[in-house]
């Protein structure tokens, strides 16, 4: 190839459409959110963990789960981050996401944390590092999606 060869680029598009089946377990989890404002976990008969969101099998024991139990509505914030840079398609910063272990659950659930003063990021981070108690907040009109809920610090937290 000589130096005078023009390098060609070809524009392209990568658009694939999918239909994801959420399945009965997830559908039931969402129905509980929408209809009874409950967050459900499922117990593994082998390790006895209550897995949240409730699901049909435990991957660690490779067994089907049995009972479904409600968890929360309060819990402990395990870890967090404060997003300060903008990403296409995601909520405008600054936003806080965190993993929260709801009371009665053995796994943590991820969601946004609202109601924090984010004018001083360092101060907000220091507060969240204290693993505050949080509670689940439902939107006024739940749709049966994970976005029906979010977290906020409890008055004590």
């Amino acid at each position, binding site marked *: 190839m000589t130096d005078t060869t023009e390098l*060609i680029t*070809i524009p*392209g598009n*990568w658009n*694939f*459409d*999918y*239909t*994801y*089946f*959420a*399945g*009965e*377990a*997830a559908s039931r989890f969402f129905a509980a959110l929408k209809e009874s404002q409950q967050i459900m976990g499922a117990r593994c008969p082998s390790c006895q963990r209550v897995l949240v969101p409730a699901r*049909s*099998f435990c*991957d*660690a*024991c*490779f067994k*089907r789960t049995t009972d479904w139990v409600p968890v929360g509505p309060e819990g402990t914030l395990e870890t967090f981050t404060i997003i300060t840079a903008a990403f296409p398609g995601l909520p405008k910063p600054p936003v806080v996401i965190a993993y929260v272990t709801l009371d009665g659950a053995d796994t943590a659930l991820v969601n946004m944390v609202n109601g924090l003063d984010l004018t001083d990021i360092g101060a907000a981070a220091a507060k969240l590092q204290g693993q505050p108690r949080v509670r689940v907040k439902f939107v006024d009109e739940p749709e049966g999606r994970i976005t029906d809920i979010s977290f906020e610090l409890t008055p004590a937290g």
Partner: protein
Amino acid sequence: MPIYIEGVALEISFADARRNLSELIFDTVRASVDDSGREMGEIDSVVLAAHDLVDGRSLSSMVSAPAAGAYLRDEIRFSDDGAAAFAAAMTRLEAGDNQRSIVAAWGRSSEHDPDAFSRALFDPCMTRPLGLDEFMLSAMRAQLCLGGDGVPEAHERAVTRRGDAAGRNPRALQAGGFTSAPHFPLAAGDMPLWADITVSMVLSTQPTAIRVAGMGQSSEPYLFGDRPLRTIRSLSEAADRALTEAGVPGSAVDVAEVDGLTLIDEALGLEAVGLAAPGEGMLRLADDPRANPSGGGASGYSRPTMGLLRIAEAVLQLRGQAGPVQLDGVRTALASGSSTVAGQTQTVIVLEAA
């Protein structure tokens, strides 16, 4: 070191909204482990065949591998044909790296668009702008191969026979599914039935009734125009290797489950593995009960499960568990799997009743 098959399970369904992909996988893998009579604690390897563009997410094995038993195990995923994953699992056991492995593959045609998937296989510079897909390549091959004496009549009989087998195979998809539009000279009866497929096996070095007697693999150039078109060279080479290792000629196997995207590819596949003389693949597919008794692609098809499904059907034949499509006296079986693009790489497995 001989490898044995301890457990097998497969499910062909379509758009079962009660289960998400992970649940579908769990059900089949769990069933294969139950079938093996082994405990999860005895399994130390998980080898998977799955494709991000089929599953609808990048690195889809993050969520699906644990559903296939990968938790705290040595797991690897191939975005390649299911029979290639089977071969890779064999190498792990033969190398002594692992003792017992799950091999699983899946694809839900009800969740993705198989034609869009196929078009995206073509390189953006030379072939994708033409809107090529793998069915077009199969059609061009068919054009070359369907003109021989007696071939059109044999073709009609092969289509009928394939449909009958799929109708009698209890594992085949009986309702739902869909087919892609055929390109001339392909017709509806040549096309695979897109379905949701999960298939899983347990392999180990502990003797069972089913032994892997031979394994062979090969490959061809990417551009279709670089390949010989009347024959599937990579499949011939792979079959040669597997059959030599097994010490069996292709014509002597009791059952051959040969993978092909279309019925034409299945017919050419029979020639490539030595079950049919050159030019006689279609006759063989029409008249020989040993050829794809499961109904092949008509019983249900999804990338990238292809070859693993064919191996599973062969295993059931060897065990006498194939039901209404069972052949008599099956002691050796050959199964093959072809990859994208249009069968560019091939894996052949020869199995024996031990």
